[in-house]
């Protein structure tokens, strides 16, 4: 299983704060995003802007290969401070 978390605008536009999907061998973050966008137009909308990606709470890019039980997070650029 892959756990997906979303924050801020990505959470609001996708309508899903958290969900799990089945892990597949050789899956990358890019594959995961394509799969979500095909399933639901809300995900395609959520991924339109600048999307930052973290896998297991470490920033990475969309080429990152996923292991089973990874946690993938999608969120917009941060605005703290």
């Amino acid at each position, binding site marked *: 299983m892959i756990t997906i*978390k979303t*924050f*801020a*605008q990505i*959470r609001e536009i996708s309508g899903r704060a958290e969900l799990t999907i089945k892990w597949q061998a050789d899956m990358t973050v890019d594959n995961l995003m394509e799969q979500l966008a095909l399933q639901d137009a809300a995900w395609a909308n959520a991924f339109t802007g*600048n999307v*930052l990606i*973290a896998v297991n*709470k*470490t*920033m*990475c*890019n969309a080429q990152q290969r996923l292991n089973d039980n990874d946690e993938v*997070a999608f*969120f*917009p*650029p*941060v*605005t*703290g*401070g």
Partner: protein
Amino acid sequence: MFAHICTEDFDQQSLYDELLAQSQPTPGAIVTFTGLVRDFNAHGPIEGMSLEHYPGMTEKALLNLLEQATQRFDLAGVGAVHRVGELANFEQIVWVGCGASHRQHAFDAACFIMDTLKQAVPLWKKEYQHGEARWVAVKSSDEHAAMTWLTPSKN
């Protein structure tokens, strides 16, 4: 080294004392930065804000920054606190404290932490204005900087 994410308000003296108690050796120079919620943005007055974060990653990213600052500026001690949740205008939102032997190191480290915190720690502000809630936008120049500070090699 300490990084707190909290919903309640924080106390200047307690944080200063915590920083000093953790510093080794006792620093000759201590610089603190405190940020308060402003009561306006580019579009006019606001009525407070709410802050969303990524539990677990926010603390990790903040500690990562403090670790980088410690190495880069030879700090004796460093700490940071960031509020999340609902915040009224003028409330304390962020605190950073740096202790060092050299005055300039303490100043530079506090600057560095604030600059990178605004780009590298998963926190998102939503401002209340004219009866609506709007996500705060980032300057495009900050977006790439965020990735630079957060690349896995920096861990």
